[in-house]
């Protein structure tokens, strides 16, 4: 096992450069270390100015998504030694503006997520006295997969369409819209369809499929989008019928 490994990081310090530059660091390559441990070592011992996001270090918060050797991964879930002898190239997520070093601005995703109304929409709320909305295990199973999304945005980094088309809502947001559409307690599918049926909302997806490949939680956003396309198309044709109108 190699004693140390080179990590090359795409640095970007707006106060001193206009374009990002690569900077190399030698870090110990411990068997149990993740790429995140390497980054933490760099920040603790080598260069305290390195900026990056992380939190839970166990793959549930979605903060530490970065592009490592060309693939978007959670750095807390990727063994450093798997890249031995190296070097390991770490860059910020694609598709988002870089604020500094490995930190990107996520506001576009947040806005798009809000636009699909990721919450239970009811025509009428039940009063508290009537108790909670009951759901069978079958009904739960209908949407559970899509509820596993941790908003890590690896799918957005992997999706070429998101980078090419600024109005594309993106894999995670559509998967989360589906999570609510398929929830038996929700009555807001119609409202969400208005947002998603916009030309660029969902229809620029060409089923590249990379989003599902990189998803660490097996949400399968590509599948969610395709299912939604089928549902939206059926709805569109139904609306042509005179009795299919709202």
């Amino acid at each position, binding site marked *: 096992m190699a004693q140390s490994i080179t990590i090359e990081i795409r640095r970007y310090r707006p106060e001193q450069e206009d374009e990002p530059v690569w900077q190399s660091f030698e870090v110990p390559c411990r068997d149990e270390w993740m790429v995140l441990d390497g980054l933490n070592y760099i920040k603790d011992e080598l260069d305290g100015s390195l900026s990056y996001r992380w939190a839970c270090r166990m793959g549930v918060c979605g903060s530490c998504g970065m592009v490592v050797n060309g693939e978007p991964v959670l750095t807390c879930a990727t063994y450093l030694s798997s890249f031995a002898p190296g070097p390991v190239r770490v860059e910020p997520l694609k598709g988002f503006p870089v*604020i500094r070093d490995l930190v990107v*601005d996520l506001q576009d995703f947040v*806005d798009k997520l809000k636009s699909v109304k990721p919450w239970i929409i009811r025509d009428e709320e039940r009063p508290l006295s009537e108790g909670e909305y009951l759901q069978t295990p*079958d009904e739960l*199973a209908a949407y559970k997969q899509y509820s596993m999304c941790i908003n890590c945005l690896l799918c957005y980094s992997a999706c070429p369409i998101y*980078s090419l088309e600024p109005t594309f809502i993106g894999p995670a947001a559509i998967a989360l819209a589906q999570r609510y559409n398929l929830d038996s307690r929700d009555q807001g599918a119609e409202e969400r369809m208005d947002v998603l049926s916009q030309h660029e909302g969902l229809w620029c997806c060409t089923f*590249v499929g*990379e989003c599902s490949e990189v998803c660490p939680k097996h949400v399968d956003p590509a*599948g969610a989008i*395709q299912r939604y396309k089928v549902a939206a198309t059926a709805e569109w044709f139904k609306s042509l019928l005179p009795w299919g109108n709202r």
Partner: protein
Amino acid sequence: MSQSGKLIPSEVASRKAANPRYQLFHPKWYRPRYPIFWWVEKIAYLRFITRELTSLAVGYAAVLLMVEVWALGRGEEASHRFHDLLGSVPVLVFHGVLLALLLFHSVTWLNLAPKALVVRLGRRRLPDRLVLLGHYAAWLVATALVVWFLVGR
């Protein structure tokens, strides 16, 4: 606008409402230009663009069907000339490539069918493998029908 000249969120929202393609200008943020040839940078992307380009093979096949009908309609001589052309070596090589593309289209299309066609049975969903098997069975049946129609007397 706030006092420091920075846009406040409601301003951004109203600009976005007016033009969905609006992106907040921030002079210090780095926005790399997405490369035109992004699709050669990863094998997965290359496979994707090849799959998309098979639509040209599909369109060509439809055109050739039209030519076949046209030649048939023009009479025996036109038909023979067309069929002789089909048998020439350069055309055969070209069609070999196209057949490969058509097969690639079929395989990639059928393999993705289980993603779009999700049938729920209570708690479980119909296994992807079963949906896949069903589609490949349909391919077999369709092939048999086409061959029977063309070759059968």
